[in-house]
């Protein structure tokens, strides 16, 4: 009769997989998890369940976040499938409801790493987790009046990146490459996104120091390669040869810009971008992009999950930590044509071995408001 027992066991697992379907977002991920269930889940059931909630998998940035998360769960001796992926597809409602389902299923035994998608969504997420007695670490989106220390131990930490300074640095690299004069255009992200606002602000700061650089236009291309391509073609018609340099708020948009230039036979236009994606770093080594900024999403993905996990497992007590360990800036590294080769070898071709218990190794100080 053992086959009946096996059958029932498998059905139970399938039901669980079904419940998590929305969480996985992808039937593919669910299928692979369903195909090899046993040991992974058994092992994970000893400690807190580790989950990462983020926007999507079509973006190299979030892929890097997830690979960091995977590396962290592997450091615990668990398989990658032990990391529960909650994909919100850019919807705050889905982000919150997935997390609530997860909490309903596992209660206090959850260590959650999350980008709440937009700032107002952070509070309900944190409150839900805290009410369930689980543990959460957030990145990027949080309102200024919300602080981890107001929730005791359950809101472990928040990490964000200040993009103003690094964006100013890329702008300076660009303006220097232009010889300090000529027209420049800026392609920005979705206008209401915090990184888009900060990166534009950094660009404008740099403009002040270069009086002979003329700002021709600022236009949102929504982080999108195709849209950036079309916007750049429009710019070429509008400004023609007056454009001497292009400042992009993300790598994905820079790819579209470079292709729009290539279509016109323009191969040597100075272009800078942001994010430090592998393909962009590759382009920096070739001089196609002059500079990009690496925010180390791999480390961020791992360390955010690690903070929530070790707080949940009791390895450290968040409320005993100073404020600078609960709200801090993540690392930013300017990658230019000079150091791109070296950088690529260290961070892109391989990922450095990080000590996931050294939580604040790459942190850049407490978050400042105002």
């Amino acid at each position, binding site marked *: 009769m053992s086959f009946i027992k096996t059958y029932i066991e498998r059905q139970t697992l399938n039901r669980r997989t079904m419940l998590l379907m929305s969480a996985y977002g992808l039937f593919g991920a669910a299928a692979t998890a369903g195909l090899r269930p046993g040991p992974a889940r058994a092992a994970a059931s000893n400690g807190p369940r580790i989950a990462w909630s983020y926007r999507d*998998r079509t973006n190299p940035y979030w892929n890097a976040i997830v690979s960091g998360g995977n590396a962290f769960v592997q450091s615990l001796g668990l398989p990658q499938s032990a990391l529960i992926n909650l994909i919100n597809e850019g919807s705050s409602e889905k982000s919150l409801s997935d997390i609530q389902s997860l909490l309903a299923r596992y209660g206090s035994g959850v260590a959650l790493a999350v980008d709440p998608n937009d700032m107002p969504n952070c509070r309900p997420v944190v409150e839900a987790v805290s009410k369930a007695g689980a543990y959460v670490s957030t990145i990027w989106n949080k309102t200024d009046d919300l602080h981890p220390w107001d929730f005791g131990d359950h809101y472990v930490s928040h990490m964000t990146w200040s993009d103003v300074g690094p964006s100013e640095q890329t702008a300076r690299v660009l303006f220097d490459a232009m010889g300090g004069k000529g027209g420049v255009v800026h392609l920005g992200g979705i206008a209401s996104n915090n990184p888009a606002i900060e990166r534009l602000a950094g660009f404008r700061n740099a403009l002040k120091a270069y009086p002979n650089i003329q700002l021709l236009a600022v236009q949102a291309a929504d982080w999108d390669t195709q849209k950036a391509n079309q916007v750049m073609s429009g710019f070429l*018609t509008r400004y023609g040869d007056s454009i001497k340099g292009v400042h992009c708020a993300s790598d994905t948009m820079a790819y579209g810009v470079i292709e729009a230039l290539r279509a016109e036979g323009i191969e040597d236009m100075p272009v800078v971008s942001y994010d430090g994606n592998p393909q962009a770093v590759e382009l920096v080594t070739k001089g196609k992009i002059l500079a990009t900024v690496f925010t180390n999403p791999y480390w961020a993905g791992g360390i955010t999950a690690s903070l929530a996990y070790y707080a949940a497992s009791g390895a450290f007590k968040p409320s005993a930590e100073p404020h600078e360990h609960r709200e801090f800036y993540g690392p930013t590294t300017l990658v230019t044509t000079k150091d791109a080769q070296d950088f690529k070898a260290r961070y892109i071709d391989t990922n450095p071995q990080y000590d996931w218990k050294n939580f604040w190794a790459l942190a850049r100080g407490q978050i400042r408001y105002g």
Partner: protein
Amino acid sequence: MNRFLATDALRKWVPLLVLVGLCLFFTALNPNFLSLRNFARIAISSSPALMVAIGVTFVILMGSIDLSMEGTVAVCAVVFALILNALGGTIAGRGWVALPAALLVGAALGAINGIVHVKLRIPSFMASLSLGFVGIGLSLLITGGDRILIDDPPFRSLLTVRVEGFPLMAYAALACLLVAWFIQDHTTVGRNFYAVGGGEDLARASGLNVGRLRIIGFVLAGVFYALGAIFAVARLGIAETETGRNFMFMSITSVVVGGTALRGGEGGVWNTLVGVLIVNVIGNGMVVIGLADYFQDGVLGLLVIAAVYLSTDRRSLSFVK
């Protein structure tokens, strides 16, 4: 004005007049708009969109709708890029196999779409929308969310090599348009699309196998989506899940703006060409005249409504749904 527009002969030309009007409008605000180089830029952004829009034109002519294009384009682009890179990375060598392979994948996805719609009797709207999501999921599964780069000079010559100021891509798209026009006007299948769209009961009563025809229509659409995918990859040198993004809005809008009726039986691929050009001229023109970006989406929507209003004879519609 209304009587003037009501004459059928003139109404047929309204989309073209809208296109010319838009060009004059943008030229008046920025003379740079009216230049060969700018038209070449519009041609580049129009070529992939034209292929996808032609594909959905066939389906709309039958009175159905196909919303699977984003998924199909993504899968075809990714499969094309993977095969090309696996077989040496250049279409000058064995990599050419990737071209027919992508078309086959497009046809297969179209066939699944059509079969689900016809055999399971699911409305084409729902069947194709769902399969579009499956397509996006499938392309994510294949790529794991990564981008595949295509840097094959012979293939990218579609973008980089120019004849008479226009890139090869524009001529290739034009050739595909002629093929589509031939299918539409000079084959039984093409004529039958109109028959089904104009009156399915009549077509059925005269012995036409409507189910089979619908499946053929979806297969044909799938092949054109694949062509769109190939042009999209040629344009950016990147194949990824995002390659399919925005094609749904772009293609359906183009078809309708071009004067093809959503209820079927009226319009055709030439209308679609005009529609695609209208949408892309608007997109390009708004940047060229320097319209603030927070206005652009709203203005695009309003211009689309205006274009549809001008190009459809509403008095011939007994009801609007």
